[in-house]
C-alpha cells in the first residue's frame, strides 16, 4: 500500500491554494519516484493553517501547514513523508491546542476521512446511527431526538424532535424532508464544511429523519455560492444510491428514502424556511405567512420537516450514542455541541465545535487568539447579518440561546465575526439596513421601505444633519421593523443597528465630535 498524503479539498483550503499544493506534491513525488496516494479530505477547521497537509505515518497523522506550492520541494527534502521535522511541521493535528480543546461530535470525521469514501465513512463510525434507527419504531426515533435536547441549528433554535413529532403524526400520502443548506449568514461556513468534508453524515441524518417521520423524499437546497459543496453532495448522493443507502430499501430494510440536491439562485431570504419551500416549488422566494406550519402544510402542500444542515448532521451521533450522551454536553436549555465559526479579524479563525457554555470572551480571546491585526477588539457580531454587535463589556455572556437573548442578541447559526478598533459602527449599522434593503422579499412595507429609509437616515447622521432627531428616527424605524415584519429579515435587522447605537454611541456622534475624539 502506498503512502497516504492528505490535502484538503474544502473551499477555504482551495481558496488558499490547495489544488496547486496537491499538484506540486504529485509532481515532486513522481520526480522522486516516491509512491504516494493523495487523498482530498475535508478541513480540520484550522483555517489559518490551510492548506494543511497531513501524512499518514506508522505513528499516526503528522500535519504541515500552511503549505505553499513553493514549500513542497523542501518538504520532500526534509522527508516529510515520514513525518520528519520541517519549519512547517505541526505534529499530530489532533494535538494542536485549538483542536484538542474541542468536543467533536458532529464534525468527528471532518478532515479525518476521504469525504467520498463510504468505506472510510463506515470504518469511522458512519451508518451506525441509521442501523440503530432501523431497529426502532419510528416514534422511538423521534423520542430519542426529542430527549437529546437538540434544537435547530439554523438560527431559531426550535426543538428538532417536536418538529419531527408533528410530521410523524400528520396523515398524508407524501411527506418531505428538506435540508436547509442556504447558509446565507455572513461569518458562517459550518454547513459548507460538513457538506464538503463529511457529506454522508448529512445523508444519514436525512434518512433517519425520513424513517422517523414517514417521509420518502428529501431535498437538499444548497446556495449557488457553494459550488464545491454542490459538487460533493451530488457525488455523495449518487454513491449512496448505488450502495443502497438511499432508494427503495434503505440498507436492505423495507423503508424507502431517496433525495436530490437543488441549487438556490442568490437570494438571502430563501434561507427562511417558507421562502425556501416556495423556491423549491419553482416560485419567487417570498415568505409565507404561518400558520400553516411547514410541518403540516409544507413543500407542495405536504407535511415537511425542514431542518438546517447541522441539525440533521447531528442526528446520526444521537441515534448511535443515545440521547443521554448528547444531552450531557451543554448548559441550561442549550444541549449538545455547536460548531462555532470564528471569523473576520481574528488570529485563529476557523471552526471550533464545543459544548454550549463557553463565554464570548473565551471564544474570541483564548480560542481565537484576539485580532489578526493585533489591535484591540472593538466589536463582535454574533449570529450573522441579523445578529447584534457585542462590545467587550459583554464578553462574559455564555454561548447559550437564552443568555444571548437576554443580552439583546442571538446566537443564530453561531457565526462569530470579530472587528478591531478601526471598525466604524455607524458604517456597520448602515450596512445592516442596506443588506436588508437588498435582500428584502418585498412583502412587508417596514422591511422593504423602512430599510431604505434607514440607510438614508443614517447617512444624514453621518453628514451631521440634525443628528439627534435622525437618531430618534432610526430608533423609531427599528421599532416599526421589529413589530411590523413577517420574518426575521425585517424583524431582526434592528439587532445589529440598535446594538451598534447602544454600545458604541460615540460612533454616531456628530462629525466634529467624532473627529475631536480621534
Amino acid at each position: 500500500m502506498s503512502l497516504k498524503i492528505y490535502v484538503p479539498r474544502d473551499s477555504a483550503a482551495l481558496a488558499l491554494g490547495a489544488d496547486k499544493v496537491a499538484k506540486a506534491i504529485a509532481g515532486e513525488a513522481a520526480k522522486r519516484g516516491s509512491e504516494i496516494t493523495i487523498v482530498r479530505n475535508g478541513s480540520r477547521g484550522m483555517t489559518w493553517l490551510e492548506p494543511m497537509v497531513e501524512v499518514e505515518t506508522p505513528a499516526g497523522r503528522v500535519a504541515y501547514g500552511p503549505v505553499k506550492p513553493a514549500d513542497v520541494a523542501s518538504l520532500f527534502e526534509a522527508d516529510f513523508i515520514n513525518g520528519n521535522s520541517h519549519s512547517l511541521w505541526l505534529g499530530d493535528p489532533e494535538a494542536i491546542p485549538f483542536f484538542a480543546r474541542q468536543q467533536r461530535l458532529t464534525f468527528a470525521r471532518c478532515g479525518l476521512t476521504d469525504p467520498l469514501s463510504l468505506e472510510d465513512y463506515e470504518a469511522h463510525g458512519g451508518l451506525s446511527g441509521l442501523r440503530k434507527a432501523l431497529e426502532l419504531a419510528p416514534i422511538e426515533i423521534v423520542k430519542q431526538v426529542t430527549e437529546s435536547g437538540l434544537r435547530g441549528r439554523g438560527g431559531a433554535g426550535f426543538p428538532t424532535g417536536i418538529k419531527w413529532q408533528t410530521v410523524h403524526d400528520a396523515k398524508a400520502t407524501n411527506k418531505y424532508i428538506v435540508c436547509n443548506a442556504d447558509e446565507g449568514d455572513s461569518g458562517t461556513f459550518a454547513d459548507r464544511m460538513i457538506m464538503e468534508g463529511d457529506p454522508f453524515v448529512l445523508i444519514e441524518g436525512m434518512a433517519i429523519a425520513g424513517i422517523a417521520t414517514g417521509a420518502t423524499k428529501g431535498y437538499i437546497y444548497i446556495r449557488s455560492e457553494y459550488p464545491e459543496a454542490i459538487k460533493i453532495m451530488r457525488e455523495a448522493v449518487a454513491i449512496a444510491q448505488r450502495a443502497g443507502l438511499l432508494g427503495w430499501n434503505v440498507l436492505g430494510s423495507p423503508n424507502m428514502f431517496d433525495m436530490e440536491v437543488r441549487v438556490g439562485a442568490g437570494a438571502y431570504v430563501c434561507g427562511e424556511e417558507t421562502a425556501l419551500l416556495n423556491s423549491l416549488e419553482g416560485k419567487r422566494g417570498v415568505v409565507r405567512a404561518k400558520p400553516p406550519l411547514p410541518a403540516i402544510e409544507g413543500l407542495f402542500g405536504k407535511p415537511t420537516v425542514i431542518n438546517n444542515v447541522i441539525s440533521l448532521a447531528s442526528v446520526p451521533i444521537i441515534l448511535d450514542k443515545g440521547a443521554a450522551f448528547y444531552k450531557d454536553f451543554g448548559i441550561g436549555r442549550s444541549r449538545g455541541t455547536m460548531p462555532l465559526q470564528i471569523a473576520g479579524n481574528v488570529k485563529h479563525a476557523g471552526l471550533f465545535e464545543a459544548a454550549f457554555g463557553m463565554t464570548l470572551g473565551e471564544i474570541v480571546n483564548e480560542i481565537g487568539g484576539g485580532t489578526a491585526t493585533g489591535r484591540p477588539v472593538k466589536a463582535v457580531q454574533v449570529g450573522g447579518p441579523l445578529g447584534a454587535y457585542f462590545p467587550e463589556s459583554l464578553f462574559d455572556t455564555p454561548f447559550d440561546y437564552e443568555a444571548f437573548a437576554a443580552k439583546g442578541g442571538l446566537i443564530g447559526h453561531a457565526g462569530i465575526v470579530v472587528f478591531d478598533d478601526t471598525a466604524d459602527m455607524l458604517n456597520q449599522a448602515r450596512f445592516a439596513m442596506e443588506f436588508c434593503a437588498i435582500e428584502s422579499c418585498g412583502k412587508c412595507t417596514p422591511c422593504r421601505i423602512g430599510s431604505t429609509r434607514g440607510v438614508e437616515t443614517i447617512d444624514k447622521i453621518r453628514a451631521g444633519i440634525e443628528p439627534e432627531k435622525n437618531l430618534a428616527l432610526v430608533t423609531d424605524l427599528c421599532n416599526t421593523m421589529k413589530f411590523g415584519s413577517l420574518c426575521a429579515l425585517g424583524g431582526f435587522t434592528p439587532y445589529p443597528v440598535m446594538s451598534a447605537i447602544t454600545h458604541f454611541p460615540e460612533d454616531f456622534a456628530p462629525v466634529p465630535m467624532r473627529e475631536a475624539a480621534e
Partner: protein
Amino acid sequence: MAMQAGTEAHQRMLDVVEAMKHQDGALLPILHGIQDEFGYVPAESVPVIADALNLSRADVHGVITFYHDYRSAPAGRHVLKICRAEACQAMGGEAMAERAEDLLGIKFHQTAADNSVTLEPTYCLGLCACAPAAQLDGQLIGRLDEERLREIVSEVRL
C-alpha cells in the same frame, strides 16, 4: 444571439427545457440550465419555459427577476465577485472592493468596455475565516490583497 425558432440556439434552449421539465418544481433547475448553456437567460426563453410548465409568461418573468443570479444579458468574459459582507469588511474587504473598481475602471454591477470582466458584489462565500474573499469565474480566492488583485486584473485582460 439569434434565438428565433429554427435556429441552432433555439433548439439548444428547447433541449434544456425538455430535459428538465418533468421534475417537481422544475422552474429553477430549468433557469439554471438555460443560464449554464447561454451565460444568461434570454428573453426568448420565457415563452418556451412558460409553455412547457403551463405557467404565464408573467409568472416566469417574475421568478427570473426575483433572484440575483439570473442575468438578462450576457456578462463579460470573466466574472469577478467580491464579498462585501461583514467578515470580509472586518478584514479590509471594502478597501479591496474599491481598489477593484479603480483597477478595472468600472463600478460594481458593470462590465468593462472591452467586455473582459463583469464586477459583482456577493454576500458571503463561506470563506469568512480567510477573508477578504473573492471568486473569479469558478475559482475561489481567500485573503485577497492588492497583489492578488493586480494579478486578477492582468489575467482578465489577456
